[in-house]
Structures are given as C-alpha cells and as structure tokens.
C-alpha cells in the first residue's frame, strides 16, 4: 500500500537501556542556560533589559550632582540607589513578563508542556535565569555608582544583610509579578508596550528618577502600593548615610516595613501566578 518501492529505509540507532529521568536540577539549569544565551544574542533585549538602566544611571547621575542640603548626600547617590532597585525590577519583572508573553504566544510553553519536563523545571529555570541576570545587573550598576558617584558600599553587616534581603525579595516579587503580568498581553507584539508603560510610570513616582520627597503626595500614595517604592527606600537605607533619614516619608528607614511589604508582594504575586498562569494562549 505504501510507496516504499524505490526507497530504502535506513534504521535508526537502537534504544539504549533505560536510564533514570533527567534530574530537575539539570533540566532547570539547561532551561536557564538557554534563556541566557538567547538574551545575550538578542541585541534588542540585551539593550532594553541590561544596558538601559546602566545608561540612565550614567546620564542622570552626571546631571544631578548637587548635594541635598542638610543631608550631606549627593543627588546622584540617591538616584544610584533608585536605579539599582529599578535594574532589579527590570531583569525580573520586565524581562519575565515580556519573555513569557512571547513564549506563550509562540507556542513554546505548549511545546514544553507536551514534553516530560516537570513544570517546576520551567519555573526553576526562570528563577536561575533571573538571579544570574539580577546579580550581573546589580554588580555593574554598583560598580558604576561607586566609581562615578562615590557611592559607598554598605558599611556594616546589618546593611549588607538588608542589601541581600532587599535584593532577594525584590527579585522574587518582581519575578512572580512578571509571570502574572505575562498573561495580560493578548499577543507577543503588545507585550513590550503593556509591560514597559506602567514600569516607566512607576519609576518616576517611586523615587528612581526623581527624589521621592519631590513626588506629589497622591502619587506617593500610589507608589506605596507597589514594590518598587519599597525597593528604592530599602536600598537607600543600605547605601546612604543615616543623615538621609530625615528625607524619608516617615523620617526613618522603616526597614522592617520595607521587608514586610516586599514579602507580601511575593506571596500575593505567587497566588496571582497560580490563578492566572496558562500554557497556551487560547482558552
């Protein structure tokens, strides 16, 4: 019946004896590696996600050099703390929201869903990917700020601990919110705009490009609803001298509150992910 005549079929190589399933760790690392290679080869994504915050730091930091009276702190140092926070948000929230929206629209998620890969490996891979890019981004921004704007590295173990906590909780809350928001764009084409627009707005009202004390009170209240404001405040408490505390809304660093809000966003974001995550773009 089949048109085999005239064609010779070569057999495939035989099946090897059954080894164990690939480990979750190995699969997750493989996913993360693939994401990293893709990011680094995609110039547009590399620019927007990784290089853009560095450029803004150089630009804004060199414009605002005056010392804020009564604090002994230079505006560029305040800005550096804020831009490091927004850099963390960029490689977690923005990067995941856009890349997962793409992967969903292009059917990549469904391809994985149809393989034996455990779904946990996908999310663990994304976590590793975000952690690697967040560490790289933070190190670069910190290096620029320390060299160009005399930003001091944390001076006490307490401050280092706060730095680590804000970094981890900021990355975690940004990531889970990114995964949740990735379900909003109807297709990959809209993803960039839908994700970037609110992020840029948040940056302006959360003390990244403007001093938070210069933001109108109503917008300060809006900013306080989202994690970025708390991340910038947390990092100011890490990098600026205690004399800056008078400039904070509460007149103090509010370190415990910063951590509580970021942890709450992480938990809330996780719940949101569970409710909204879809492997395919339709139905």
């Amino acid at each position: 019946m089949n048109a085999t005549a005239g064609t010779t079929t070569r057999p495939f190589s035989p099946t090897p004896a059954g080894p164990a399933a690939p480990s979750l760790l190995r699969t997750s690392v493989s996913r993360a590696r693939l994401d990293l290679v893709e990011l680094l080869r995609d110039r547009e994504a590399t620019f927007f996600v990784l290089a853009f915050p560095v450029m803004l730091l150089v630009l804004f930091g060199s414009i605002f050099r005056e010392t804020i009276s009564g604090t002994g702190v230079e505006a560029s140092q305040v800005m550096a703390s804020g831009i490091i926070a927004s850099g963390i948000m960029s490689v977690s929230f923005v990067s995941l929201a856009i890349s997962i929206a793409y992967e969903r629209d292009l059917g990549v998620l469904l391809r994985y869903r149809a393989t034996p890969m455990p779904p946990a490996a996908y999310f663990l891979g994304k976590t590793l990917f975000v952690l690697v890019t967040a560490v790289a981004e933070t190190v670069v921004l910190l290096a620029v700020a320390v060299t160009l704007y005399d930003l001091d590295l944390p001076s006490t173990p307490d401050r280092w601990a706060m730095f680590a906590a804000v970094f981890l909780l900021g990355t975690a809350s940004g990531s889970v919110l990114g995964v949740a928001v990735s379900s909003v764009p109807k297709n990959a084409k809209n993803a960039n705009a839908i994700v970037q627009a609110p992020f840029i707005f948040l940056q302006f009202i959360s003390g990244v490009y403007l001093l938070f004390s210069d933001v109108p009170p109503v917008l300060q209240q809006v900013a306080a609803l989202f994690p970025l404001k708390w991340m910038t405040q947390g990092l100011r408490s890490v990098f600026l001298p205690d004399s800056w505390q008078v400039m904070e809304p509460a007149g103090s660093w509010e370190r415990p509150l910063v951590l509580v809000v970021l942890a709450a966003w992480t938990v809330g974001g996780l719940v949101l992910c569970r409710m909204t995550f879809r492997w395919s773009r339709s139905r």
Partner: protein
Amino acid sequence: MDAITVRGLRKTYTSGGRRGGASSRVEAVRGIDLVVGAGEIVALLGPNGAGKTTTVEILEGVRRRDTGDVQVLGIDPADADAHWRERVGIVWQTTGAFDDLTVREVVRHFAGLYRRPRPVDEVIERVGLAGKADERIGRLSGGQRRRLDVALGIVGRPELLFLDEPTTGFDPAARRHFWELVHALRDEGTTMVLTTHYLEEAEALADRVAVISRGLIVAEGTPADLGGRAQQHATVVWDDPVEGRRVVTSATPTATVRDLAARFGGEVPGLEVHRPTLEDVYLRLLDDHGATQPARADDQPIGARS
C-alpha cells in the same frame, strides 16, 4: 493492543459574550469515533476548521474534551503524566521561537528532557539539517524550520508520534526525504497520526485515512478504497484518428482496452486509464457533506501563530 481508541468525542467552544456581544458556540467536534492500532499510520484529512486540530490536540493531552471516551497508550490523555509524555512525540506547527539559538543547541536541549533521547546529531542528520546544525534558527528557511519541528518531535524516541501538517513548505525532494524518515520510524514500530492537506502524502504514508468534515468522520478506509474508490468506474482515454480525443468511463476498463486493442490491431494511440485519485474521492466526499465552504478562523492550532 490499540494505540488510540476514541468513542463519542465532542468539543464545543464558546467565545465572545462579554461587553454585551452575543456569545457564539461552535461545535468543533461532534461525536468522533476512531481507533488507531499500534504501529499503524493514520492520516486525518479535512478542510481547515473541520475539527482535525481540535481532535488531535485532545489526543495529545494539550486540550480538554467535553465528553467522550479517549484512551491513548492506555490512559486518558487528560491525565497525562511525565511517563506518558515520554512516550508521545508531537511535531508542532512552526512557532517562530528560538530564533537566536542554533539547531544543535535547541535539539540538544530538548533531547535533555527525555530519558532515552536519540543521538542529537543523528536526529539532525535524519531530518536533513546536517549542514545547518550550527546555523541560527532565525536564518533557516520555512522548510528548514519545519524539519527542526520534526527533529524536536522525534528526538525523545516516541512510541506514538503526532504530525500536524509536517511537510508544509517542503520542496518535492524534501518531502520525499521526509517520507523516507516516516518509513524508518514505522519500521521501528512507531505509531503515527498525521494531519495533512497533501493527498498524495496521505496516500504514500498512511495505512488508513479518515476524512473529517464539520466535526464528524465522514469516511474511513485505506487510501486505495476510501469512499468506494476501488469500485468506482475508471476513465479510459485515447486518441481516435477520426473523432479525436475520446473519454469513456467504464466499470470494466480491461474489457474496454481489450476492445480498443482489437479495433486498432495493436497499440492504442494516446491510451490512458485512470482511477479516481484520492483527491477526487476526497473532494467528492466533502461535496456530499456540504463541507466545501470551510474556514472557521478559530480552529487555528493553539501552538501556532495566527
């Protein structure tokens, strides 16, 4: 042991209904029965929007059904676990993903998701991408991307392989090459379910074809006798020196040719004998079921770009 058994499968999509608009219900699959034996190659034919893709996606375990009994490799695909996914391969429609990675990187990555993957370079070579192994996927032609989809479908050494229009964008040589690959997979015992718009492909590859129209299977059989093809009248054509080109349909074409041979005393000028092609039978079947006006836009495969 059958690889797939389907009884009374139904799926209705509801869309719209928000913002005051009327909601619409589309019965994509309206009661399909289908059995695919282990090692068999079955082709599903049907116009776009007939319910092929929905049916296949339910069998692949990536879409939920409304009602009906479905067993694929012994379990309900709605309960698919990693062990089952290990045994099932899917050749997806091209998605345009992984543009910045190379063929080998992506095949190796997917191979790493399975217990017993085929050797990466062997898969790349067998789908005809040996010369393109280190090329970025974004630089491949449409047909070459399609071959990558085939590679990702077979790299896990599946027992059951779903192929969704696998040769779209292939040139004739690439299509022949792909057929040879399918034969090699069959020789290994792989069961295959194929959807295609190329009737000659179904004829070359499938042991059995099923025609789906408007959510129902309207005909099923071997490619040779689908829709009574084997019993249908043949067409005998020849050049008559006086009357010119002659066309006669005949239930007994051998007798017709014998008579002609006797009349011409040997060679019949311009003699041709045709049975209806699979395509003729297919189009007539669709006509009979009023399905030649197809095209519902919403039966696009969920894995593909619209």
